[in-house]
């Protein structure tokens, strides 16, 4: 699965492109194109999250040094200065460089701090990191976080376009947030008064960008301030009307019309998808990966 980092989000219309074409550009996201030629959005972790996870890692290193120092004192009480010196170096290096490197190798990109904040170190093209990446990040991290008290790391992360500190730059990685829950508002139900009109209307011609805008407005309508709610609904209705035939009843509230259009499109799309899957099921054997899907059984 090869990937390339994309410079722009998809759907950016070039010169002379369709002005109604959907331009989806995620907020502060970094798009990576996978081997399936799909642009995957891997948002870069924000600097405050990085700082917090870094502090947690430094805290962990401090605890390891303290506990290890105590154990070392017990074990090397009788030993010569050479042994004590060796053990000290090994303890400090192990706690500040070794522990993060091993953690990131074994978990493919997470340390304790990153685990706590839901971050993960990934390669520049979105893939998993290996031992060499982890050791490079940790070794350069020693210089920029411990020796120089975090100043170069902070400045580099603030200035770099993908929030890379020097260790990330030297290894070819960056830190991303990979976990995003699916927050989809429940779709607006069909207003009963307009069901008859919508069932017989042609609503298929609406461009997708408009239907996305209508759906998002309806989901948040209750939270929009009353002063702007009516104008927004009116504007959307004006944009929708050219694509709907016959026109809706004049007594209908704009938001009800919009909800009716969206609900009707949803019902028809659901019927279409189910019908297509049934037709497919009649020709092909049952889907081995989705045998219990109630929509396609």
């Amino acid at each position, binding site marked *: *699965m090869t*990937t*390339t980092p994309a*410079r722009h989000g998809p759907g950016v219309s070039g010169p002379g492109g369709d002005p109604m074409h*959907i331009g*989806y550009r995620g907020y502060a996201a970094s798009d990576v194109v996978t081997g*399936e*030629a*799909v*642009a995957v*959005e*891997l*948002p870069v972790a924000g600097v405050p999250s990085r700082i917090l996870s870094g502090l947690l890692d430094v805290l962990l290193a401090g605890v390891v040094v303290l506990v290890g120092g105590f154990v070392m004192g017990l074990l090397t009480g009788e*030993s*010569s200065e*050479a*042994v004590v*010196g*060796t053990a000290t*170096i*090994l303890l400090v290096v192990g706690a500040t460089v070794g522990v993060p490197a091993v953690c990131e190798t074994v978990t493919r990109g997470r340390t304790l701090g990153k685990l706590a904040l839901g971050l*993960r170190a*990934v*390669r*520049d*093209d979105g*893939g*998993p990191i290996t031992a*060499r*990446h982890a*050791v*490079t990040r940790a*070794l*350069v991290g020693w*210089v*920029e976080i411990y020796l120089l008290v975090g100043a170069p790391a902070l400045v580099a992360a603030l200035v770099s376009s993908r929030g890379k500190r*020097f260790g990330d*730059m*030297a*290894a*070819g990685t960056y830190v*991303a*947030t990979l*976990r*995003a*829950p*699916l*927050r*989809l508002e429940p779709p607006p139900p069909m207003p009963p008064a307009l069901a008859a009109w919508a069932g017989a209307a042609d609503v298929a011609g609406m461009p*997708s960008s408009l*239907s*996305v805008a209508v*759906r998002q407005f309806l989901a948040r309508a209750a939270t929009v301030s009353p002063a702007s709610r009516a104008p927004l609904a009116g504007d959307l209705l004006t944009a929708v009307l050219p694509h709907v035939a016959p026109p809706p009843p004049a007594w209908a509230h704009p938001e009800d019309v919009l909800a009716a259009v969206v609900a009707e499109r949803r019902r028809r*799309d*659901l019927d279409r*998808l189910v019908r297509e899957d049934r037709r497919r099921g009649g020709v092909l054997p049952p889907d081995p*990966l*989705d045998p219990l*899907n109630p929509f*396609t059984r």
Partner: protein
Amino acid sequence: MDLDAYVAVHRGQWERLEHLLAARRLTGAEVDEVLDLYARVSTHLSVVRSASPDPSVVSYLSGLLARARLVTAGRRTSTWRDASRFLTRTFPAALYRMRWWWGTVAVVNVVLAVLVAAWTVRHPEVYTSALTPEEVDAYVGTDFENYYSEFASHEFATRVWVNNAWVSAQAIAMGVLGLPVLWVLATNTVNVGVAGGLMAANDRTGLFLGLILPHGLLELTAVFVAGGVGLRLFWSWVEPGPRTRLQSLAAEGRTAVGVAVGLVLVLLVSGAIEGFVTPSDLPTGVRIAIGVVAEALFLAYVFVVGRAAAGSGVTGDVADVDAGDTLPVAA
């Protein structure tokens, strides 16, 4: 296409993929299922992005695909073959490809050390301002020699090894910033030069060389390699050549850290010599010969094994599949 209808029909598959990705161990059938679902969910993401992109759905599916990719593409097995490959191809090729850098660093630093030693002989106030005449006599007469036999040989050898390995690793890591490497090299060279000058001024040049040369040849070579590699790392983002600065820095950074790991083994040899050979009772000629042989073996390792590996295209970086893919750029 309506987003809600699409989500309703396909949600079951997304939740199945979530469930599989959260599992600690996957059976063979489950791995096949994850691979199939990865391809299907990629299609779903593509359809959603082009037809009706809702930010929450796009982020969710992107995160799901990224995690699926980590699970399916992130497994690495380590074998003895990988270790032997590192020692016979990656490390020597990296050393060979950077030979001009650490060679120049070595020559410059040796000349500098000699100059510092000559200066110290001419200007004794360099050490007389810090040491009383009794301390100078103690240093020249006994302390310098006893340094090598103060502790048990194996303890001393380990101490020296760990210390040198860590200093070299730091010198390489500091290469990202550049100037600290010069400072580390300069400190090291000035120390050696002043010690040499001090010993020469008191007519102990033979003793000095007899104690330094057995382990010092290989150890100083390793330090100069670390310094040269660090400077090369600095240069990789100053003058990136046909690649972007970040690409160049990343490739050289990974290579440099590979060299840092390999130098640990080189310094193990020099540490063993310093711990066991230098303070031993062997005649001076034999000890120096051991040092010269170790150095010659290292140079043969670089210029024979390394040259062959570099000639067959090994760069010292990780394998292509691990380095990831980049957009090709015009030089």
